[in-house]
């Protein structure tokens, strides 16, 4: 048995270590890894939490009573077959589904203990605190600089502050060196991977607390994917991260906790290690070993 302290250290390993872990998994050396007791979960700080969250589009229920903690400064991966409600769940976490007229929810989503669906919650400041990166890179059709400056600008940053914000944000997104000489170029002239890192920079620009990633690498090549994964691993120092992915290796590489969804239900939630080493539910095991989905 591993003591909680030990495990925390392991969870703060860097990206390379995570990848090594994935390789270990792949080569079926998984029995070398220790099983982590669920007691461990109780030592984490909870940043967000859904309580019995259900979601409907018109009369069709696509999420059924999801209760999930999202731990502070950790990466939580959501895996599951396509159509099982991963994106819907993610978009419920920053109320992006508000713009879909047919969408309706029940249950609660807590951010620092406060229900974000409360009447007195301001959606604008909520989305500033809980940012989002989408499946396809969607930089605005404007200059690289303006893409990053847009968020701070609309939240009232002074014009003379913007240049510094742009630089520091692009650095955080590991893009500064590549674009510093072409900040005025149209963002659409960047490669797909660069565009996605620009979108990450854009999300970081308003200093969020939580960042939601919806399959951020599904449109990217392996090289660009590796860069984004490194970035995500680094981000958890300062942010709480939730990532939807249908790439099992990616979940294993970047996340500390993993939850498996199927048919709109939360089937299992545990540390990533435990989920990939010895899931408790047979369905999880079948999905992870590629037998469906």
């Amino acid at each position: 048995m591993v003591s909680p302290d030990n495990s925390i250290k392991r969870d703060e390993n860097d990206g390379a270590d995570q990848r090594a872990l994935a390789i270990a998994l792949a080569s079926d050396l998984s029995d070398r890894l220790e099983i982590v007791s669920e007691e461990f979960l109780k030592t984490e700080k909870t940043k967000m939490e859904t309580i019995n969250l259900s979601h409907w589009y018109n009369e069709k229920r696509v999420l059924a009573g999801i209760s999930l903690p999202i731990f502070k400064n950790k990466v939580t991966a959501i895996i599951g077959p396509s159509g099982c409600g991963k994106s819907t769940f993610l978009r419920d976490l920053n109320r992006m589904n508000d713009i879909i007229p047919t969408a309706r929810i029940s249950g609660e989503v807590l951010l620092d203990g406060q229900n974000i669906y409360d009447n007195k919650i301001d959606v604008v400041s909520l989305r500033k605190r809980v940012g989002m990166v989408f499946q396809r890179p969607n930089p605005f059709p404007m200059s690289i600089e303006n893409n990053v400056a847009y968020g701070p600008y609309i939240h009232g940053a002074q014009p003379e502050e913007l240049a510094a914000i742009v630089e520091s944000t692009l650095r955080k997104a590991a893009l500064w060196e590549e674009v510093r000489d072409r900040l005025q170029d149209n963002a659409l002239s960047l490669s797909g991977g660069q565009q996605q890192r620009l979108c990450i920079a854009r999300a970081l620009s308003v200093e969020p607390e939580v960042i939601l990633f919806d399959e951020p690498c599904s449109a990217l090549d392996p090289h660009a994917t590796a860069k984004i994964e490194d970035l995500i691993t680094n981000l958890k120092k300062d942010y709480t991260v939730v990532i939807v992915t249908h790439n099992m290796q990616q979940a294993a590489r970047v996340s500390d906790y993993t939850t498996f969804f199927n048919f709109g239900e939360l089937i299992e939630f545990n540390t990533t290690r435990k989920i990939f080493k010895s899931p408790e539910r047979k369905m999880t095991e079948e999905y992870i070993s590629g037998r469906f989905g």
Partner: protein
Amino acid sequence: MSEQQQTSDDLASDEETIIAIGKQKISFQHVVLLLAASLSVIIVVLVFIFTVLEGYRIIPEYGFIDFLFGHEWDSPHEQYGILPMIVGTILVVLIAAVIAIPVGTMAAMYLSEIAPEIVRKIMKPIIEILASIPSIIYGFIGWRTLVLFLQNQLGFKSGRTAFTAGVVLSIMILPTIITIADDSLKAVPRAYREGSFALGATNWQTIRKVVLPASSSGLTAAYILGFGRAIGETMAVYFLAGGGKNLQWNIFRGVDTLTSLILKQLPEASIGSVEYHAIFGAACVLFLITFCVNLIGDLLIRRFSKKFRGASK
């Protein structure tokens, strides 16, 4: 085995006859259809040639500079300068633009970004009907309301002014502007809006800072095609702009435009006279302007529809 052979042979020969028949039919239909399709092209070319053939003569007969930049059109004194009409056209179109661009853009923004689906479904066809009202009716209503108002309430000697015509024209070109502007706003991928909302932007910030800039070339096309319609419009202007064949810039005085000049002077000019050629010269200028305006508008629309190809909706 042999039956199969038979069948496929049959098929082959069938195919050949179809192709053969098809070929015959095509060669006949081809001509008919080609003629039908060419008709409009032929007419355009003929109209163009006819106009230019009659119009170019004003250059040797009157002089290019005097014609284009002459300050006065005065038939009895054989003065045929069209600058007053060019200025008149500009005044009327500018007034129409100053009103129609903001109103049209805001209407399109409302329809595209804010209106519930049901409101949009009701309003769009109504706006398109506006475009199909015959221009003489606009002219008549413009006279009944605006012209009489200016005369009776504001004491204008004549309510037929560049301003009057411009105001009514702005209403006439609104459908064009709203429809094309709405289409180009709608063409902006949802992904851009979501990207903006996800940063905590309001709907209004998103429209102003992301959607409008992203659709700028489409919006410009909407304006330009609206101008095209305004420049070519004749009846309402004939009815409402009064007239003035001397160069002046006051929007509250009567003006003639290129179109109203042609409409008024053509019946009076004897065929083959200098005035007749001057009228056709004016038509050439009008032709050139509307052609360029529409070309630019079409190019912008094409560029715009290319812009988001491949971008996720």
